[in-house]
């Protein structure tokens, strides 16, 4: 029979239930305390252990036992302080004495609902399997009949259009003396921007730390002004610093308006003082990572700066409703919203909605296709990221982006509107580090541009997160990298200049890779949008579903 002490622990979890188990080496540890200090969730702590030490002195064996108190680093078994596997401890350890190890047999989700609160986190879908887009290959290589281009030396124009392109039949053009002129009474010509086809997707100030956001913004400005790459970035729902909004850099930003309208009072009041129009307005109706949910910024992230930018009191939970409260129907309310936003900038700025990937995307698409003011449709697939959501939304809800975009594109082709309404693909671009390849594949399936969010956090700011639920603490405000926190003690770890530098490196590298992909296809002047004959998949079901070639 077990002793009473054992029975008292019967309702405790063992470490085997935990997703990450700390491997700590007594012999290497100098007890400096850095690991326990840095752990964002206090999953490890210094603890005294009583050891029985057997030793012998002198020339003849004469074992003696002695009890000693030693200090160890111990992992706690409190589910609320589970080790997230972020590895901050390993990073700070001077002696390689500690490391979290993934436990594939964990039963974490079975227990992570204490207090009746389901598991909430940041990050994205925990599914390390390669996504569909990662399984697509570029199989048409020009060689003899159509010589390949030289990715290094030929001129490439890797640009796309954001905004609605009129059908050629509707262009207000007149031929006069062998020359075409634009007729002034020709009606509305929608605004269109020429941008780089990889954009930085919507991540708000608030969700991101000031240093992270600043780093991204500086990187984007550098790419535009020094590298000549018109990369644009979306603000997310959280406004934009007023000084930036009024500056000449505003043109590199897409302002997002979402169901909480956070920051928009400030933006609307700043419009008369703006010197440049923003790149576009994104109306967020849904998010791929958490379909059906609104944005959420926890109270402890709402510090003074955030409160000022968003126009709200400090330290209150900022929950955006799942839908726009004014939304009645797509034919009416959504159309009105698009028109109102267009009107705010004198119809000079493209306005488009962003929805989460869904089976109903085509219904949305067709409404937008008939709305002359809709500038694009952005679809955010299930592999998209978020700063805070219920795990169930992230893991189990949403629609893969590949077939969603493909269906929408082919639907537009059937209507002859494939060039009118650009499709923007988001969610999982660069999931396994192949940002350019993912972007190229989506473009060949029919997207005009792609958004990247989580990848840029990983690549530019050393984010620990992965698809095995590593770290994913974005929602707690305790991001160990200083990316998604408003705690100055944490975000001062992140140097905005270095983030900016990485953003530039990432985009320049992706640009080279895009050329490497496009050159053998023989495409250089315009993007290979819808050039699906260049794609192949080894999986016959993927090939059939996406209407591309099956290659084995």
């Amino acid at each position, binding site marked *: 029979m077990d002793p009473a002490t054992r029975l008292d622990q019967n309702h405790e979890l063992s470490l085997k239930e935990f997703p990450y188990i700390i491997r700590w080496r007594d012999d290497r540890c100098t007890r400096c305390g850095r690991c326990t200090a840095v752990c964002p969730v206090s999953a490890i702590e210094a603890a005294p252990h009583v050891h029985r030490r057997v030793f012998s002195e002198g020339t003849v064996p004469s074992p003696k036992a002695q009890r000693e108190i030693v200090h160890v680093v111990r992992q706690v078994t409190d589910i609320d302080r589970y080790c997230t596997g972020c590895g901050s401890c390993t990073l700070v350890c001077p002696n390689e004495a500690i490391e979290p190890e993934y436990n594939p047999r964990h039963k974490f989700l079975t227990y992570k609902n204490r207090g009746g609160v389901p598991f909430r986190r940041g990050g994205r879908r925990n599914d390390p399997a390669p996504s569909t887009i990662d399984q697509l290959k570029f199989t048409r290589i*020009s060689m003899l*009949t*159509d*010589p390949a*281009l030289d990715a290094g030396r*030929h*001129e490439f*124009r890797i640009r796309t*259009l954001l905004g609605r*392109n*009129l*059908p*050629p*039949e509707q*262009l207000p*053009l007149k*031929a006069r003396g*062998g*020359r*075409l*002129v*634009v007729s002034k009474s020709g009606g509305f*010509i929608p605004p*269109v921007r*020429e941008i780089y086809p990889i954009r930085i997707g919507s991540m708000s100030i608030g969700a991101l730390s000031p240093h992270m956001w600043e780093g991204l913004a500086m990187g984007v400005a550098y790419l535009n002004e020094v590298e000549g790459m018109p990369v644009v970035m979306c603000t997310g729902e959280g406004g934009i610093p007023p000084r930036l909004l009024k500056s000449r850099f505003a043109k590199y930003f897409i302002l997002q308006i979402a169901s909480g309208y956070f920051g928009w009072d400030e933006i609307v009041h700043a419009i008369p003082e703006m010197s440049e129009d923003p790149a576009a307005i994104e109306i967020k109706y849904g998010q791929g990572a958490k379909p059906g949910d609104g944005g959420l910024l926890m109270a402890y992230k709402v510090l003074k700066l955030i409160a000022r930018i968003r126009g709200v009191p400090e330290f209150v939970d900022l929950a955006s409703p799942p839908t726009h409260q004014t939304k009645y129907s797509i034919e009416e309310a959504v159309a009105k919203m698009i028109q109102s936003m267009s009107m705010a900038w004198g119809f000079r700025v493209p306005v488009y909605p962003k929805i989460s990937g869904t089976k109903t995307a085509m219904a949305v698409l067709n409404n937008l296709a008939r709305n002359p003011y809709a500038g694009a449709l952005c679809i955010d697939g299930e592999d998209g990221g978020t700063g805070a959501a219920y795990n169930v939304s992230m893991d189990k809800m949403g629609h893969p982006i590949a077939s969603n975009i493909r269906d929408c594109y082919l639907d537009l*082709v*059937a*209507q*002859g*509107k*494939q*060039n009118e309404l650009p499709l923007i693909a988001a969610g999982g671009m660069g999931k396994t580090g192949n940002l350019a390849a993912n972007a190229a594949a989506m473009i060949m399936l029919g997207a005009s541009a792609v958004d990247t969010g989580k990848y840029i956090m990983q690549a530019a700011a050393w984010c620990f997160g992965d698809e095995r639920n590593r770290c994913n603490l974005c929602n707690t405000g305790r991001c160990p990298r200083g990316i998604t926190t408003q705690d100055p003690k944490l975000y001062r770890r992140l140097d905005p200049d270095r983030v900016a530098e990485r953003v530039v490196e990432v985009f320049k590298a992706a640009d080279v890779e895009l050329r490497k992909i496009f050159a053998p*296809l*023989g*495409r*250089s*002047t*315009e993007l*290979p*949008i*819808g*050039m*699906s*004959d260049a794609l192949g998949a080894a999986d016959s079901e993927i090939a059939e579903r996406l209407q591309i070639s099956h290659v084995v």
Partner: protein
Amino acid sequence: MALNTMKEGHDGSGLGLVLKDLGGEFEKFKGLPILSGIASSKGLRDLENYMYAQGFEEIHMWQPDIDDSAPEPETGRRDHYFAKVYELPQLYRDRPRKEQEELLLDARLALRALGEDEESLFVFSFYPDAVTLKEVGDPLELGRFFRLEDGSLQAKIVLAQGRQNTNYDIYLYACHPFFLQGYCTMTNGENTAFVPITEFLTSRGFPGYMGYNSDSEVFAHILHYTHRQLGYPLTYYKDVITPLSEQEIDLRADGEALRLIRRSLRPLCIDGPNCVIGFTPDGTAFMVQDAKKLRPGVAGGVPGKYALVSEECGLDEAVPDRDKTQDFSPMKYDMAIIPPGAGELIRWNQLHTK
């Protein structure tokens, strides 16, 4: 002679010939549509039945006076090679030209559908003042076979291609030149963006944008689309297939229009390698290149007689007594244009139109 110009370079796989501004026995039928094609006996019966039912009245038929001593085409001698001149159905004679053209197109597509499965009937063009002849085999031998030198076929504008489609199974509908409502092109090269261009054209809702048995057929249809459907002057064909960059557009006086065109016609951009030679219904002939990979192409001649050919040796054959220093090889931004009447060779450049 047009075929002779190619004897240096052709791969001997076929003959494609479109003749415009006709003389000889067609001279007196100016303005009346000519249906060109190949048919088996059954195909010809189907054709005649169809045309009769539609109210077309056949008033003349040209058939080549085949030289039995010449080698036969590779795919065997067909029952009938023909170019038939018709009177329009009574109902259409006073209709606007566009409606008449629509009727001709509908008839050609219907005939194509009639004979396509069994390959009993191929119709290549049905349009006033244009004759098309296509066959598989050595082009010079085919020339002898059809006795092209006998003078029964005469034309001021001749588009000739000395080979069949090269990359896939040989098929007559894939053979250059491609003709649609008076617009005609032939191309040297390969079209990388065939899929998006085809998708864009077929989704324009115009029945003639079909076929696409060759990736080069789209060049004729882009020309038709920009010039006829959209009403752009011919030089904009170049701006559509090889659009300038945003910065280059600023150099142009018509930059504002150009920017709109570039955006709205983005799917029609080609990346080559292509050299396109063609003509429009008014008899303007031209040559353009893609903007990067370029295929050989040279234009030259004397007033009244110009040639647009792939290789210089062809030009020497066609117009030996010309000033060679005036030969023009269109490059990235260029378009060689020969206006109706062939009085001059215009060198148009995309960048210099202030």
